[in-house]
Every structure is written in C-alpha cells, then in structure tokens.
C-alpha cells in the first residue's frame, strides 16, 4: 500500500475521473474546492500518476475505437515510397513501439493546478504554449476537457478554452466544436501533431467517437432558436473543419476524415430535410443577409461534403504508379461504402432549399 497526502489523493482522484475510472459526483467536489498546492509531490504520488497515465490513456483509446478492425494508411513508407494500407486493430496496424506516449512536466503541473484551483480562476491561471506539449500531454488534456465540460461549466471551464493551450488544442476543437464559439478570432487549432505519427494513430482510434460527436452537434441544431447562436456555432465548425481538412490533405491522410462520411451517412438518410437543421430558428425581423449567414452556418457540415467529393473525383484520376495511389484508393473505397455521391446530392438539395434567393 502506497500512502499519499490528502492533496495528492485529490489529484489522483481527479486524474482517475478524467480517465473515466471514477464517476463525476466524486470529482465535482474536488473541482469546486480550492486549496494550497504543495511545493512538490512525493515519489509515491508521482509513481501512481505515471501508472494511471500509462494504463488509463491506452485503455481509453483502445475502448473508444482502437479495438476495431479497420483499414487505415500505414505511417511507414514501402519500398516504392508509397504508404501501404493496413488492416487490423490499432496495435496490429502500427507496431506498439511506435504508439508510445510521453508525458512532460506540463501534465503534472496541470494536474496540480486543477486540483488546487477552479478552472475559471484567472488570477492563478494555468497557461502553457500549445507547441510545448507532448502528444501524451495533449491526450490527457483532451480527456480533461471532456471531463470538465461535463461537470464544470459553471466553474469557469468555458474560460479555460479561450486560453492556451486549450484554445489551440485541435482534438478538443474537432470533437467539441460547440465549446469553441467564444474562441478569439485569430485562434487556429494546431493539427500538425494529429496528422502523422502516433497522433494520427490516435485519430484513427477516435473515429467512432468523432462521428458520434458530429452527429450529436448537427442533430442539436434542430433545437436552436437564436440565429446568433447558430452563426457562432457554424463559424467554430467552419474554422475547425477548414484547418482539419487542410492538414489531412497536406499529409495525404484523407482516411482520417472518414468519421465525417460516417456522420453524413447517419444524418443524410432518404428523408433528411431542412427542418433537421433549422426547424426552430426564429428569423423574425432578420435581414436577408443575416438569414443567409444563419443558414450558411447551419449547413456548414453539409457543404463540407463538396470538398470531400472533390477528393473522390481527384482520386479517380490517380494512376497505379502515381504518388498517393493507396491513399486515394482508400478514400474512394470509403466514399463508395457510404454512397458519397448520394449523400452529397441530398446535402446540396438541403443547402439549395435554404438559399434565400430560392425561398421567395
């Protein structure tokens, strides 16, 4: 039995909450509480933190999608310089040695800070440049963001998202675009760590979760009443989608955008209609320009399918010996599996029906 101080016990409990090992009601009192942080942690506590991080993060990734047998581009280059497609579970597609996560002192400092303060405490804010974080740090912060948004909205969690490093945390932004409506205008999510190496492997594992989240965000639009709320949500979505698709295109990892196709397949069934995105919007007294901007924001996800279709069209022209053949063929297969052309036509019909010039 290893003994720890009361502060360290609280820290560990919060960490276990972020790693989904304790329920929210045991974490909330700790988040509400403020206390003095010790000057350092005992070796026991650090060992327990290391153990929790090493096992907990991996377990969560495996449970959320790493266990699935999927086809993704391999990160390695074959003899022809072409990335092959590999099929299997996450640790079968990529050697476990390449999936290693490292955590820096920033993780420990964050855990100490969140235990001692409330998320919204600005006089003792925790802020680290996003580029200083390791992949492990970023993953832990992703789980922390998920945990905080569930219980700590009233404790200042939204404020945390407008500051470094959360404001640039691309995975948080991608999974929870509705949390970034207040992000500063110049803020851009940093997708570089997530589109190659172990970061891309994590995105592979989180595909089902990302699909589920985007289905949830789009489905919730039906309940939105205030046009301004819709506009800021659409803007946040547009920012993250643009950054994400630019990044995956640059790296030749279009397969990482598969979750968008999966979400579209659910949202755009044969009976999809405009009301699913705009049913409750109160447009009384709105200018035509504002109405158009609101509908554009509501349909940002639908309009993204045009770009994804462009990838598929481009893939048709890539030859066997061309660079990126495996990537384009994989994208074509994904596209055909969800009947991407049919989905795009349905999306276009909805977007056109909401064009103010066609509504009069």
């Amino acid at each position, binding site marked *: 039995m290893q003994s720890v101080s009361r502060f360290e016990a609280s820290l560990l409990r919060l960490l276990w909450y972020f790693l989904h090992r304790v329920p929210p009601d045991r974490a909330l009192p700790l988040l509400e509480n403020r206390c003095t942080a010790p000057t350092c942690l005992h070796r026991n506590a650090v060992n327990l933190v290391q153990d929790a991080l090493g096992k907990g993060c991996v377990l969560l990734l495996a449970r959320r999608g790493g266990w699935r047998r999927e086809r993704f581009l391999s990160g390695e280059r074959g003899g022809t310089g072409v990335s092959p497609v590999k099929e299997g579970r996450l640790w079968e597609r990529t050697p476990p040695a390449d999936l290693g996560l490292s955590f820096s002192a920033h993780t420990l400092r964050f855990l100490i800070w969140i235990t001692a303060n409330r998320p919204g405490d600005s006089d003792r804010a925790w802020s680290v440049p996003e580029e200083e974080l390791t992949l492990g740090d970023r993953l832990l912060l992703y789980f922390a963001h998920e945990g905080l948004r569930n219980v700590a909205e009233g404790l200042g969690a939204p404020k945390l998202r407008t500051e470094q490093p959360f404001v640039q945390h691309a995975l948080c932004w991608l999974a929870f675009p509705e949390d970034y409506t207040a992000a500063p205008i110049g803020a851009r999510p940093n997708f570089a760590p997530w589109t190659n190496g172990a970061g891309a492997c994590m995105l592979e594992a989180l595909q089902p979760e990302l699909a589920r989240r985007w289905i949830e965000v789009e489905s919730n639009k039906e309940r939105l009443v205030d046009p301004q709320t819709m506009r800021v949500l659409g803007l946040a979505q547009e920012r993250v989608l643009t950054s994400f698709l630019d990044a995956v295109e640059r790296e030749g990892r279009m397969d990482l955008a598969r979750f968008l196709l999966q979400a579209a397949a659910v949202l755009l069934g044969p009976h999809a209609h405009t009301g699913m995105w705009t049913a409750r919007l109160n447009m009384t*007294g709105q*200018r*035509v*320009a504002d109405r*158009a901007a609101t509908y554009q924001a509501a349909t940002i996800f639908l309009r993204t399918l045009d770009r994804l279709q462009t990838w598929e069209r481009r893939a048709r022209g890539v030859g066997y010996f061309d660079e990126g053949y495996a990537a384009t063929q994989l994208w074509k297969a994904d596209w055909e599996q969800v009947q991407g052309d049919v989905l795009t036509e349905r999306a276009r019909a909805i977007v056109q029906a909401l064009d*103010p*010039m066609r509504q*009069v």
Partner: protein
Amino acid sequence: MSRAYRVTVRESQNRVIRAEDHVSTRLEILEVLPPEQMAGLLADELERRGFERHGTRLVRQQDGVTISVETTTGTVTVAAEASEEAAIQAERTDRAYDDVGPHAKVVRENLKKQLEKDIEKKVGEKTASLQTKVTDRLEGELSDVRQELDQAVNRVTAEALKRKAAQMGQIKEMTEDPQAGSLTIVVEV
C-alpha cells in the same frame, strides 16, 4: 416639503438613418467551354439584359435594388440600401426644489442623460422601421431576379453547347424549343 419647480428639458437632433440588406449566391454554370469563354458568354447575355460592364463585373440597378454579377466566379449579389434624414425630438420633465439652483442643475443633468437614451431609442426604432422596408424591397425583387438569372444561364448554356458542337464537327440539325427549354443538336463528326 414638496418639490415645487417643474424642470423640462427638450432635445432635437437631425440624424441620418441608414439601412442596407444584401444576399449572395452562385450561378450554376456548366463548363461546356473553358471558363473564360463561359464568363464572356455570360457577360454578353447580361449586357443584353441591361447590365453595365465594369471589368469582369456586371451591374444593374432597378427599383432601388442593385444586382451585381461577377462573371469569373458566377457570384451574384443583390443589394438594397436606403437612407433618410430624420428629425428626432424628445422631452422629459421632472420636479426640483429650486428653480435655477443646484438641485435644478442636477435634475436637468439627469434629464439630459435620459433624453440621450430616449433619442437613441427613437433612432433605433426608425432604423428598424427603415430596415424592414429595405428588407421587404429586397425580398420583393429576389424572385424575379432569380428567374431572370436562371433564364440567362440557360441561354448561355445553350449558346455554349452550339459553339461546342460546331467545334466537334458539322452541325446537321439544330432544334430549339424555348418554351420546353430543350435544345437538340445533331452533329456529324
């Protein structure tokens, strides 16, 4: 002791009220010919319909509405704006202990602050009213503009098809039914 003196403050301002509204969309033009040629055909068709050329942009004004088409991208912007000069008046009354003394001065200052708010509120109401008129005017034109541009695009497409057919071979027969919107070209290749 009752406050015996009535203090009244009046304010009158001339304000210019402005309102504007606009909407943009893109024309769906098939690339039967290279983009520059399609843009040229579109520009010619729009000129025939009373648009004025400003480089690659064609503009027409009608009934207080400006229609602008960027031929290279097919972007259409329909805009309406209006402005009017309005005389805004407001008055507020209160009571003070004295006529021209310190209390009356304080009361007058407070009334002036309230008057500013009253005037801003009236300006806001007039702006909203003008905005409603501008938006209604724009909406009234949108349907006709849309139909007209759809017709223009159809004519441009038909013309492009004729030219394309002529490039491919000898046109043996050409039948056009404007009412049905159909064009049949028989080409000997």
